[in-house]
């Protein structure tokens, strides 16, 4: 009941926003809608865990975690929205505002879905709701980005639907087919392994396209660079993670079925490949927003890597969702402010950012250090967790490659970012006025991500473990110890990919 309400509130708010006639007040209504969603979420997650009452929606630990993150993140974005849109008053923001709230409704549906086909419907709905947002600027470049996004993501996740159906089919072999993932996990041992593996590959390619895993990521840098700053932040911080959740749901079923060893090398490979691809692209990237977009590809790769490691890597990857998302929000919003001041996204033409737009400049530089894994930020914590999990489970080569790629990204991103951040202010320009509305939300996100580097709220870890513990560490209980042994063994003896 509560779960359906959580979807309904932003949905109704989207319709309300569409009806508001004033271009100036509309963004504030979005903020109000987001605030209502946050309030309701706080209430929903404070209720104790209960057995599912609805057929299609349920609030388990994982959905609580994602829900809290998404709602806080969205609220921060919408407090930035009014001030940002004030710079674009000549263009109607009706569609943008309504679609932002609609995408919140769709993302909530992804998170609280209990039925995998319903989850798919919601993921496709997020694509459709965000596409008009990307086209906000109405120029040929935005058109190209939107078209690519729409076609690639739709086709990609059509494959995910096929994968979802394969999953249901794998359960057909022993009685009733089902797509409720709690039921799938409960009867995991009886699923047909061939169909299960086929299903995971399709789901990985499908949702991986939407998540931005290389080589299916080609839409991502375009969509992120051509859309308004708020939308880029939303895509990178929230939407990609929703697709990741889709992969996690199916992953948990596959692992519970004891087929983890078959798919984990694939995840490690695709994760490291995404990181490597992004690292190379980052080194030669001169466009500030594309730079951050490639960093998204890199971090999505890290999450896939975490799933591939298994065991302690899974909670680490899930924790990274929140850390990476918030930092990406800071980076994209600050990049938006910098772009606004300089009128170009090319970092070759930017100099003395710290002097010209001091607040946004500093936010960007600090967030750059945080995202590249400097101690003191959230991503540092989850990356260390990922690495220690990798070494613990015997992935020595993969772990070393992971560290190497982190260095490469740090050097590549650092030389570009610091190059334009430092230096004198361009002649004949003064420091830009930066309205509070455009700096405070970024500061809030930045403070949040830094504090997460020192303290992870216990309820977050509880929620993650509540769902993840059952299928993944379930393999560690004595009866299934042998299965876990073969997992580790197959990793250490077979030639490792990547």
């Amino acid at each position, binding site marked *: 009941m509560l779960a359906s309400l959580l979807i309904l509130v932003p949905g109704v708010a989207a319709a309300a926003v569409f009806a508001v006639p004033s271009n100036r007040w509309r963004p504030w209504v979005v903020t109000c809608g987001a605030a209502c969603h946050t309030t309701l979420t706080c209430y929903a997650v404070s209720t104790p865990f209960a057995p599912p009452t609805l057929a299609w929606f349920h609030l388990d630990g994982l959905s609580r975690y994602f829900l809290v993150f998404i709602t806080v993140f969205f609220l921060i974005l919408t407090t930035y929205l009014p001030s940002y849109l004030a710079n674009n008053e000549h263009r109607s923001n009706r569609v943008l505002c309504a679609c932002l709230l609609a995408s919140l409704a769709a993302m909530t549906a992804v998170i609280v879905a209990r039925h995998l086909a319903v989850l798919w419907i919601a993921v496709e709905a997020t694509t*459709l709701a965000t596409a008009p947002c990307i086209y906000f600027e109405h120029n040929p*470049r935005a*058109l*190209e*980005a939107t078209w690519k996004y*729409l*076609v690639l993501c739709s*086709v990609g996740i059509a494959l995910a639907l096929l994968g979802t159906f394969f999953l249901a089919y794998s359960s057909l072999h022993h009685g009733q087919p089902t797509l409720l993932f709690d039921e799938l996990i409960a009867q995991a041992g009886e699923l047909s392994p061939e169909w299960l593996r086929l299903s995971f590959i399709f789901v990985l390619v499908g949702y991986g396209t939407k998540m931005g895993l290389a080589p299916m990521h080609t839409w991502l840098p375009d969509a992120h660079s051509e859309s308004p700053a708020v939308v880029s932040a939303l895509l990178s911080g929230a939407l990609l993670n929703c697709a990741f959740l889709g992969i996690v749901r199916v992953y948990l079923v596959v692992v519970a079925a004891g087929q983890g060893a078959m798919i984990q090398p694939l995840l490690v490979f695709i994760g490291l490949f995404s990181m490597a691809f992004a690292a190379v692209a980052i080194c030669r990237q001169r466009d500030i927003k594309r730079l951050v977009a490639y960093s998204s590809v890199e971090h999505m790769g890290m999450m896939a890597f975490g799933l591939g490691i298994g065991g302690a890597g899974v909670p680490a990857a899930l924790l990274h969702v929140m850390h990476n998302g918030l930092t990406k929000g800071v980076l994209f919003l600050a990049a938006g402010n910098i772009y606004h001041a300089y009128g170009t996204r090319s970092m070759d033409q930017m100099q003395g950012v710290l002097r010209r737009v001091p607040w946004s400049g500093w936010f960007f530089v600090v967030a750059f250090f945080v995202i590249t894994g400097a101690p003191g930020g959230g991503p540092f914590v989850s990356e260390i967790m990922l690495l220690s999990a990798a070494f613990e489970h015997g992935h020595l080569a993969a772990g070393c490659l992971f560290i190497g790629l982190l260095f490469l990204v740090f050097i590549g991103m650092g030389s570009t970012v610091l190059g334009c951040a430092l230096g004198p202010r361009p002649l004949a320009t003064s420091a830009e006025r930066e309205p509070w509305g455009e700096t405070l939300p970024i500061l809030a996100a930045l403070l949040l991500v830094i504090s997460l580097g020192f303290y992870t709220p216990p309820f977050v870890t509880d929620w993650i473990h509540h769902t993840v513990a059952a299928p993944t560490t379930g393999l560690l209980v004595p009866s299934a110890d042998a299965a876990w042994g073969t997992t580790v063994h197959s990793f250490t003896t077979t030639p490792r990919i990547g």
Partner: protein
Amino acid sequence: MISNIVDPCMVLALLLNFYLLGVSRLRMLIFVVALQGVLLGLMYPIVHQGFLPESGGLTTMSPLSLLRLALLTAAIMGIKGLLIPKLLFKAILLADIRTTISSVIGFVPTLLLGGIGTGAALIFAQSLPLPEGHQHHLLIPAAFATVLAGFLMLVTRREALGQVLGYIVMENGIFIFGLLLIEAVPLLVEFGVVLDLFVGVFVMGIMVNHVSRAFPEASTEHLTTLRE
């Protein structure tokens, strides 16, 4: 028993795939895609009758659920057979685009690839472990072949609308597979999927309109500005 009706329908769906791969007239393409959609929508109650022997199929259903089944089937067929084609015809009119589409690799090679794909789907489906009662009919190979045909259309067509049609055919293929999973994927969920497809095509239609205004002939070959 079920194969008596389902298999000929699947053969028809496969033939329509080949027709789609070889034809260049846009209006004809839209018409055939719609026809395939209606055919698959019709399959739903038929398969429902055949695959649920323990429930007795349609004959033992309560009038209410029978009505629900009829309404949802009609809605799915309406979307696939009427709304989407209407939308696409309107896009042609509004955008004033060329009424023929072209293929990057030519029509004959596409057809050949489609043929190879269909053969491969038949062989592949044989190698998969299928539960009792599913071995002998064509649903699974037809699903694979249709997804493949849609994918082929999608990657070989130059024009935006041709790609949209490829996407719809792909979805048709997935729909065929969904027919096997009536218990796990209720018709209402299937309806949600089709609704998503509809909204997707709607948004794509709007974008096609914008593409054609920005570039002549709505060819996506112009969409190549954004690079690394």
